[in-house]
C-alpha cells in the first residue's frame, strides 16, 4: 500500500532541507480554506453529496502532479486504520477533525509531503503547503498557484464583498491561516515568552502549541499564526506575521547569547543532563522527552553539542508520539509500554548519530 511511504519516516522529506533562520524557525505553512459554490458545507451536507466530491478529487487528482512537486496520493479516511490516521495527524499532514470525519473525508498528499489537501473537513477543501525555515512569501506564492490550479476544475464559493466563503466565520475572506513553527527555548527558559504573548495578540496573531488549538507548547515549540482573515490582503497578513516572527527570532538569539554569557556552565549542565537522559533512560514520558529534546537541540544550535544533526528535534518529536510508537510496534500499547518503547527508540536513534 502506498500509504506506507508516508508512515515509514517521522520526518517529512522537505524538512531535510535548511531554510532561512532554520536554527529557530522549523517551518512555514500556508493553509487555504475553499468551498464549492453549489454544495452544502460538510457540517450539514448529505453523505452522498460529500462522497461525490471525494470521488471527484480521486478521479481528477490521484497521481496528478503539480509543478515540481511529487505526484499526489489519495486516501479516503475511512480506509485508514486508527494508527495510520494518528500518524498522519502527528506528521501534521491531516487535522484531528479530518481523522474523525470518517464518512466521506479524504486526503491527498504529494509524495514529498510538501502539499496536503484535506477534503470534506470543516470546509470542502483545505490545502496546506509547507516550507522549511522562514519562507512565508515563497509559500504564499506557491499556495496561490496551487489554488489557481485547483480552481481550473472547481467552482469556488466566492463573494465580491465577503471573499472566499467558509463554514466558520473566523475563516471567511482570504480563508488563509499562515503559521510559523518556532523553537524558542531561551525565551521560554527566561520566561520572556509569557510577557510577549499579549503584544503578539495585539497584532491579530495567536500563539499555540504544535498540535493546534488548545495544545500545550511541548518542547518549547510554538506555532504563531494569523487570527484575522477578513479585511486584509494575504500579503499584508504575511508581512505582519513575518515582522513579529523576525522580532521573536532576534529576541531569542539575544536571550541565547545572554544565557551563554551569564550562566554558561548552568546552561551546559542542563543541555548535557538532557542528552544523558535521552541516551540512557529506559522509561521516558513524552513531556520529558520533548523538554530534553528541546535542550539538546539548543545545545546543537549553540555548538555545545557537536556531531548530532539538528533534525533530531523534529524527527524524534514526531517519532515518539503515541501513534508513531504504535505503528512501529505494530500493536496497541499501554501508556507504560509506550514510555519504554519511546526510551528505546530515542536511545537507538542517538546511537546512530554517533557512528
Amino acid at each position, binding site marked *: 500500500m502506498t500509504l506506507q511511504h508516508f508512515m515509514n519516516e517521522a520526518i517529512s522529506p522537505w524538512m531535510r532541507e535548511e531554510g532561512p533562520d532554520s536554527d529557530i524557525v522549523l517551518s512555514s505553512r500556508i493553509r487555504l480554506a475553499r468551498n464549492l459554490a*453549489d*454544495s*452544502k458545507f460538510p*457540517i450539514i451536507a448529505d453523505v452522498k453529496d460529500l462522497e461525490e466530491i471525494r470521488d471527484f478529487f480521486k478521479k481528477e487528482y490521484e497521481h496528478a502532479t503539480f509543478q515540481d512537486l511529487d505526484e499526489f496520493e489519495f486516501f479516503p479516511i475511512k480506509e485508514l486504520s486508527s494508527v495510520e490516521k494518528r500518524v498522519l495527524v502527528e506528521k501534521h499532514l491531516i487535522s484531528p477533525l479530518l481523522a474523525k470525519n470518517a464518512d466521506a473525508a479524504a486526503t491527498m498528499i504529494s509524495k514529498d509531503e510538501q502539499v496536503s489537501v484535506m477534503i470534506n473537513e470543516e470546509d470542502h477543501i483545505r490545502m496546506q503547503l509547507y516550507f522549511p525555515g522562514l519562507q512565508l512569501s515563497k509559500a504564499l506564492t506557491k499556495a496561490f498557484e496551487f489554488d489557481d490550479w485547483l480552481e481550473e476544475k472547481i467552482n469556488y464559493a466566492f463573494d465580491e464583498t465577503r*471573499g472566499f466563503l467558509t463554514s*466558520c466565520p473566523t475563516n471567511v475572506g482570504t480563508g488563509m491561516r499562515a503559521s510559523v513553527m518556532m523553537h524558542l527555548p531561551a525565551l521560554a527558559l527566561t520566561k520572556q515568552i509569557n510577557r510577549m504573548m499579549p503584544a503578539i495578540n495585539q497584532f491579530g496573531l495567536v500563539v499555540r502549541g504544535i498540535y493546534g488549538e*488548545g495544545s500545550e507548547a511541548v518542547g518549547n515549540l510554538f506555532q504563531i499564526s494569523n487570527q484575522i482573515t477578513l*479585511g*486584509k*490582503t494575504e500579503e499584508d497578513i504575511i508581512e505582519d506575521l513575518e515582522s513579529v516572527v523576525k522580532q521573536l527570532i532576534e529576541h531569542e538569539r539575544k536571550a541565547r547569547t545572554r544565557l551563554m554569557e551569564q550562566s554558561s556552565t548552568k546552561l551546559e549542565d542542563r543541555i548535557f543532563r538532557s542528552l544523558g537522559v535521552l541516551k540512557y533512560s529506559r522509561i521516558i514520558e513524552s513531556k520529558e522527552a520533548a523538554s530534553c529534546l528541546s535542550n539538546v537541540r539548543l545545545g546543537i544550535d549553540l555548538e555545545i553539542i557537536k556531531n548530532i544533526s539538528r533534525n533530531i528535534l523534529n524527527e524524534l518529536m514526531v517519532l515518539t508520539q503515541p501513534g508513531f510508537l504504535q505503528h512501529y510496534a505494530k500493536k496497541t500499547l499501554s501508556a507504560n509500554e509506550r514510555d519504554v518503547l519511546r526510551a528505546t527508540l530515542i536511545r537507538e536513534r542517538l546511537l546512530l548519530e554517533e557512528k
Partner: protein
Amino acid sequence: MQCQECQKRQATLHFTQVINGNKTEVQLCEVCAKEKGYMSYPEDGYSLHNLLTGLFNFDSSQMKTPQGSQFQQVKELQCSKCNMTFSEFKRVGKFGCAECYHTFATHLDPIFRRVHSGNSKHHGKIPKRKGGDLHLKKQVETYKQELQNLIVNEAFEEAATVRDKIKDLEKQIQNKEAGDNQ
C-alpha cells in the same frame, strides 16, 4: 501543588463545591478533573467556537424590535438552500452553505467586525477564473486613485497615460460584459 487525585501531576485546576452548605475544595490536574467529571466540556475542550457562539448571542440586531410589529411574531430567517435558520447558525457558529451568507447578510456585519478586528469586507485574493473581470475592475480602481494623485501633483503627462490605461480596461470590461450577455 500536586493533584489530590493522582498525586503525580501538577494541579492546575481549583474546584470549590458546595453541597448542602458544606464547602469542599479540591486541587486537581486536568486529566483527573475530566475523569472525575468536574469538567463537562465537549471532547476538544473549550474551543474558540464556544467563545464565538457566545459572541454571536450579543448580536445587536436582536435588541431592536421591528417597527410597529411589537406583537407580531417575527418570522425567522432561514436559508432556502440548506434550511439553516439564523438561531441555528448562532448556536453552532457555522454557516451551512454559501447561500447562508446572503440569507443572513443583514446580520453579519457586526459578527464579522467582532471576529476580524472591525473588518467586514474582503480585500484579498480574487479567484483567477471565477473572479472574471473583477480583477480588471479592481485594477481600474487602483489606476483611478493613481490618476487622482498624479493630478494633485500636476504630473499631467503621466496622468494622461494612466487615463488611457483606464479607458482601455473599461473597454475590455464592456466587451466582456457584452460577450457574456449574448
